[in-house]
């Protein structure tokens, strides 16, 4: 009964909400020139929208540049071929403007009407206007000192092994570059779940490890490949790679957190790995020629800074957080900002590309129409009650209220707060903070919330302020 009374009390005080029409700037900003960013930019440009593609480094490609081998039986093109095709399509497309060695220093506005400042490495600044933003900043391979990484030239990461297999050349990333001759390698040990991957599964490392293990076996079947793992997770149909690896004779040894493999260097400078095999409860000592660490993908360095600039959330590990896992998977809670690729969480190449296309399609829903309705349940300032104390300016999580000097506040003094209806997110933080009660959140007015409460106690709600 109370519930009905409460609902009725609220309904009585409801009023129609009005939305405003604002023009849309029909162009896009794509942050990140990796596979996801390039694909998103291409998809948008092909649909006729001008795109600004911003890349931090001096070339396009991102992590695709260090990927050489396709996953056997799955990928239709090789990564390098895809990189070449995409780069060509991007540079040839007149609708795409590439900003290399550039980062976003500031962005403001709302869906359909963003203004961003791009800062080049040399300090040069450009201001661009765009209707949507797509975040595709990707990730990077973790480089920590776990299992002696960096202390010995024969301890590599999976991507370094891939480079080695592709070029069989010197590895510039190592402190002491050493020509590793594949012919001399007899035994390779791979260690899975390194560093941050002990906390979260980085999705791609098992598949990459199996891909590289199969490549090694293909080059030289006599090589013994041992994979030390906690749990092999080859997502989706990549399970077939595991089967193929077993068939080719790759050895899988399981370890757990209590028995991590011990990597050490003997006095004779020989690499040694001590492993406790869980089934036999027995310790083995290996002297491999190559130790390959399956370093997980971690968020790009700039992710947190960019998150603050765009005012979008990241999760505890630093990955960008979508609005809803199932219902709004490629967009942020803030309208007009979308995400694609590894910036979201580690993904395989094909998944990143599909997500980029999805993000671009979602972005088109905003870009396609020349104008957009905004507002509704938003906060409104009554300038006649506003003393211009700046409390709302300070508390607003989106920095939207500002003081409009053209409006008279309390006592006829010039300057009262103004909240742009098309940007207001409608959280009501300013309403509660306003000491003068000059702000009302439409659809959640004081009268609407309080009358609901009062109806429970069968007390009539009385407006006790001067206005309202």
């Amino acid at each position, binding site marked *: 009964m*109370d519930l009905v009374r409460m609902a009725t009390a609220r309904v009585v005080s409801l009023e129609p909400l009005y939305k405003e029409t604002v023009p849309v700037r029909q162009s896009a900003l794509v942050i990140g020139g990796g596979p996801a960013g390039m694909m998103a930019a291409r998809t948008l440009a092909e649909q006729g929208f001008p795109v600004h593609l911003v890349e931090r480094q001096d070339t396009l490609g991102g992590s695709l540049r260090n990927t050489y081998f396709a996953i056997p039986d799955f990928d239709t093109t090789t990564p390098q071929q895809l990189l070449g095709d995409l780069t060509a399509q991007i540079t040839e497309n007149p609708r795409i403007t590439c900003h290399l060695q550039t980062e976003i220093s500031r962005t403001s506005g709302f869906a359909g009407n963003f203004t961003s400042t791009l800062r080049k490495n040399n300090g040069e600044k450009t201001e661009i206007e765009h209707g949507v933003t797509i975040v595709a900043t990707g990730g990077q391979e973790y480089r920590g000192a776990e299992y002696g990484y960096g202390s010995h030239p024969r301890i590599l990461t999976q991507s370094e092994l891939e480079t080695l297999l592709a070029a069989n050349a010197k590895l510039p990333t190592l402190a002491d570059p050493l020509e590793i001759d594949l012919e001399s390698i007899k035994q390779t040990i791979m260690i899975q779940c390194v560093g941050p991957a002990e906390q979260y599964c980085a999705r791609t490392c098992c598949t990459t490890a199996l891909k590289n293990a199969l490549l090694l076996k293909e080059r030289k079947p006599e090589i013994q490949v041992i994979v030390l793992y906690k749990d092999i997770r080859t997502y989706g149909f990549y399970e077939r790679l595991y089967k193929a690896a077993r068939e080719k004779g790759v050895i899988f040894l399981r370890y757990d957190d209590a028995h991590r493999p011990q990597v050490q260097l003997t006095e004779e400078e020989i690499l040694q790995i001590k492993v406790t095999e869980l089934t036999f409860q027995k310790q083995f000592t290996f002297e491999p020629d190559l130790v390959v660490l399956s370093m997980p993908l971690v968020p790009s360095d700039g992710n947190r800074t960019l998150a603050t600039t765009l*005012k979008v959330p990241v999760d505890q590990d630093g990955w960008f957080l979508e609005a809803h896992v199932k219902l709004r998977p490629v967009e942020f809670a803030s309208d007009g900002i979308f995400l694609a690729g590894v910036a979201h969480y580690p993904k395989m190449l094909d998944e990143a590309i599909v997500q980029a296309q999805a993000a671009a399609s979602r972005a088109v829903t905003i870009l396609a129409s020349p104008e957009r309705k905004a507002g509704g349940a938003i906060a409104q300032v009554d300038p006649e009650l506003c003393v211009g104390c700046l409390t709302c300016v300070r508390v607003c999580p989106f920095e939207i209220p500002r003081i409009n000097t053209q409006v008279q506040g309390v006592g006829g003094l010039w300057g009262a707060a103004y909240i742009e209806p098309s940007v207001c997110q409608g*959280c*009501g*933080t300013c309403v*509660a903070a306003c000491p003068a009660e000059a702000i009302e959140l439409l659809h959640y007015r004081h009268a609407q*919330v309080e009358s609901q*409460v*009062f109806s429970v*106690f069968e007390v009539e709600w009385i407006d006790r302020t001067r206005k309202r």
Partner: protein
Amino acid sequence: MAQGTEPHMQIVAFCCRYCAYAAADLAGVLRLTYPPEIRIVQIPCTGRLDTLEVLHTLEHGADAVMVAGCLEGDCHFQRGNIEARTRVKRIKKLITEIGIEPERVEMFNMSSAMGRQFAEAAQEFTQRITALGPSPLNAERREKTEIIEM
């Protein structure tokens, strides 16, 4: 409503639309029960929670006020729940000054997936308030009503 079934305590829960209200909804879907003393009022974000509104609620008959928002760091509006936490602290201080137990106002944090936790929090809170008895403001009001009736 029949006199016999009238809940003894009256607790108003301000729940944010994105997390706590959804959690309460989920509690219902999961067929979990929470005490009938709880009356839920939806607000867009706990950041919208006005100090004065909570005080009015207590003034006009609530024995306790429960504020439930998103987990810290997960607020849909970035830091509305942090603002609310500060406000709840302030309200506790204010009501202590006029002789109401600060335990009558409490902030809870939960995600929209935490239906079970919502039901548990509601149950624990109701038990706590039942142990405390009616709000001092209500005791006075109830006495008055009785006198008039006689």
